[in-house]
């Protein structure tokens, strides 16, 4: 088939070559862009020992996992977190992640920082390498470094296993410093560490230059023989690197105020590292009998509280062991058998002094000895075996033999076994081995409600309400009695109507003179009670007069007088009680009640 156009034939090989070149160029371009997806930068590439620099790994996109750091054997690397950024450009969203690290050089030199690697969407990307210069003490930062440095020393670099090694860390400064902290002082599990007091501060002069020194001391006890490396100790401290107001390096009295108020100078964080130290720990020679691990310089003493005693009396044997070295291992030395004694051990008294320049300590062991036989007795020498690093061999120290006389017991006196073992300071607290809840209740109180219910509730309610009501009733009665006592006619006045009506109800109406006499007595008694006079002695006229004085209507008073007169007449047979013109109506219960009520209505409330 002819594929030519305008007389030229189509060259398939040229087209294929063009496509291939285009693909290669695109691929090369893509590969050249690959490193840009991960970039490693530092804030500076020239630093001095004791200084630090920040390294940032920036990755475009979201990595599958945190990036792999390049090999940095001569730097301490501290992570300072990560940050994610998002940008929107022309409607296109892009993400990036930055990982920050702090690098602290541990050695001077020129270092090539190799490529960091990361995996993005399954594709591994690498950064470009670069170089960092670290100047040493003789470099351009020499003067600055000598303002501030740290040292670490040991009392011996060839200790014996278990020997006390004093590790002294010192921070020298002759410039204002702020807060500082030791970030790492870890000696590993092959070394037992004991702190020796707090941080000591003092001044010293080095080559004529005055330094302020902070010293930390620790007692180290290597636990195995061979080479032991004490790692670097790192200090982080704030240092004033620029004084804005007084550029002079000479300190003045204002410096203290500046540190308090802020001088406007610039402060920077410094990381200072000590050199690693190596201990060549020598193994201990084969141990003799009686050695319990003590390495150092120790002594032993023994004493008895009394030299003269009787059988059955007790004396306290005190054995003091102490010295310098691994005093944590101080144990009671082997005390020879004392068959002539009954022995009561006591708690030991221990003390370790960490405030000095070395670790010292002592332990006091006490035993109460009660001689069982009379005669001359003794406590044989007690040996203490320890390894002496100065000698390079084991040493033994012994107490002196203690002789004393024991007299026979007097009479039948009982054994005195209660002599004080004091001073006893090592008392042991009772240790609770296990605990549990207390058992359930079975008493019948469990089925009774604590809150009053039913009649009990009403009982207590009544107990709260009734007493005040009863008191009020009693008070009212008490006041009334007092009024009666003050006014003797009061009771008669108040009861006049009730008494009169009561008697009138029992009146035998319609009977003869007896009824008239009783009716007359009722009326006169009422009038007398009501007016405060003796009623039975009243004549009809006196009754009328008294009633009129008491403001009773004349007609009613006259009616009362007339009734009394007629009753008197009837009483003595001068007038009929019943029949025509008789008194039956007046002497009836109703008649008398009406009259008395009429009188009472007008006399109510009136004083006699």
């Amino acid at each position, binding site marked *: 088939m002819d594929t030519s156009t305008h007389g030229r034939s189509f060259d398939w090989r040229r087209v294929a070559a063009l496509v291939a070149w285009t693909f290669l160029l695109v691929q090369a371009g893509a590969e050249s862009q690959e490193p840009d997806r991960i970039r490693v930068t530092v804030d500076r590439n020239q630093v001095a020992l004791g200084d630090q620099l920040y390294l940032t790994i920036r990755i475009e996109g979201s990595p599958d996992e945190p990036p792999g750091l390049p090999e940095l054997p001569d730097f301490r690397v501290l992570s300072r977190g990560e940050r994610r950024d998002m940008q929107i450009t022309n409607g296109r969203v892009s993400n990036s992640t930055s990982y920050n690290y702090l690098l602290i050089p541990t050695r001077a030199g020129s270092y090539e920082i190799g490529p960091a690697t990361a995996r993005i969407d399954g594709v591994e990307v690498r950064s470009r390498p670069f170089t960092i210069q670290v100047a040493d003490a003789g470099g351009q930062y020499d003067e600055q470094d000598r303002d501030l440095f740290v040292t670490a020393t040991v009392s011996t670099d060839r200790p014996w296993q278990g020997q006390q090694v004093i590790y002294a860390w010192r921070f020298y400064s002759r410039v204002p410093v702020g807060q500082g902290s030791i970030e790492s002082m870890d000696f590993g599990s092959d070394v037992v560490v004991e702190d020796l007091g707090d941080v000591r501060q003092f001044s010293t002069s080095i080559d004529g230059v005055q330094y302020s020194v902070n010293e930390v001391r620790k007692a180290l006890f290597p636990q195995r023989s061979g080479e032991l490396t004490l790692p670097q100790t790192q200090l982080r401290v704030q240092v004033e690197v620029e004084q804005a107001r007084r550029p002079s390096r000479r300190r003045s009295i204002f410096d203290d105020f500046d540190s308090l108020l802020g001088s406007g100078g610039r402060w920077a964080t410094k990381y200072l590292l000590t050199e690693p130290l190596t201990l060549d720990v020598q193994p201990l020679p084969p141990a003799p009998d009686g050695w319990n691990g003590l390495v150092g310089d120790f002594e032993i003493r023994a004493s008895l509280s009394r030299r003269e005693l009787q059988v059955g009396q007790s004396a306290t044997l005190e054995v003091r062991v102490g010295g310098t070295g691994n005093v944590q291992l101080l144990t009671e030395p082997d005390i020879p058998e004392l068959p002539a004694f009954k022995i009561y051990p006591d708690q030991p008294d221990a003390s370790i002094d960490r405030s000095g320049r070395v670790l010292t300590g002592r332990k006091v062991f006490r035993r109460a000895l009660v001689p069982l036989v009379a005669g001359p007795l003794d406590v044989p020498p007690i040996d203490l075996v320890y390894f002496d690093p100065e000698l390079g061999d084991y040493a033994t120290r012994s107490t002196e033999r203690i002789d004393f006389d024991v007299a026979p017991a007097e009479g039948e006196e009982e054994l005195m076994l209660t002599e004080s073992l004091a001073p006893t300071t090592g008392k042991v607290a009772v240790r609770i081995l296990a605990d549990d809840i207390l058992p359930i209740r*079975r*008493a019948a109180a469990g089925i009774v*409600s604590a809150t009053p219910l039913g009649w009990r509730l009403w009982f*207590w309610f009544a107990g709260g309400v009734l007493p*005040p009501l009863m008191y009020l009733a009693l008070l009212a009665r*008490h006041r009334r009695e007092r009024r009666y006592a003050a006014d003797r006619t009061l009771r008669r006045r108040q009861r006049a109507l009730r008494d009169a009506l009561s008697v009138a109800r029992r009146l035998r109406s319609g009977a003869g003179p007896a009824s008239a006499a009783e009716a007359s007595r009722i009326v006169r008694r009422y009038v007398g009670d009501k007016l405060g006079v003796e009623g039975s002695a009243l004549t009809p006229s006196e009754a009328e007069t008294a009633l009129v004085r008491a403001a009773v209507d004349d007609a009613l008073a006259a009616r009362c007088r007339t009734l009394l007169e007629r009753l008197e007449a009837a009483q003595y047979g001068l007038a009929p009680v019943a029949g025509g013109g008789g008194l039956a109506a007046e002497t009836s219960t109703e008649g008398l009640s009406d009259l008395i009520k009429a009188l009472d209505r007008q006399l109510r409330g009136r004083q006699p």
Partner: protein
Amino acid sequence: MRRVAILALFGAAAAIPALSQDEETPVVTEAQPAEGAPAAPEPAELWVNGNAAYEAGDFGRAVALYRAMREMGIDNGHLHYNLGNAYLRAGELGRSIASYRRSLRLLPRDEDADANLTFARRSARDEIAPPEPPVLLRTVLFWHYSLAPVEVLRSAVLVGVGFWIVLALRLYRPASEVLRWSAVCLLAVGLALAGSLVAHAAFSSPVAVVLPQEIDLHAAAGEGSVVRFQLHAGTEVRVIEQRPEWVRIELPDGERGWSMRQYLEVVE
């Protein structure tokens, strides 16, 4: 004087039931069903069977029986104490602490309940001190925290009876200084007793105990709200607000949060 004697007799009669409440009660060892007893179990039967279930290690059944007594209206410190034991053995720390708290409210001088509450609190995970009244308040109102509410109430009634009796005697011996000062003292004691009850009812906050192993405390009353912090079983906190389904609590450091009511047991 005869009337005064009647009043005094009334006061003495009022005191007798109060004293008899504190007497030792016999131990119930076996249920005594009455003749023709109804189908519903008697409280004594529930009590005995609950104790037997507890002794047999069937703590779930013991809880159910003790709770049945509670639903019958029986409310006393001994029942709450046993309920607390059963809950604790059954592994329900929060409910056991709530029961011990109720027991101590009704039997404030009960050393066993106090010891068991202390034991249970050791199992609580959160390092939060249980809400307690201020020391000053506990010192000033010592009687209130040493006596059960019903004891305070009875004491107030008895003191009130004594006060009215003394007042009555003063009607007949108004010049007696002894009676006068007795009345003043009784009035002061009675007001203090009654006042502490009223003050406690008016101002004290309920306490809530966390029931599940872990609960979320929200910033607002709603499950969609931000979870501010978490609490764990057995933690006791002060309740400052209650709604039908949500409870707002406050920690000793002032932090506040809302929890669903079902996760807390509120002890009034």
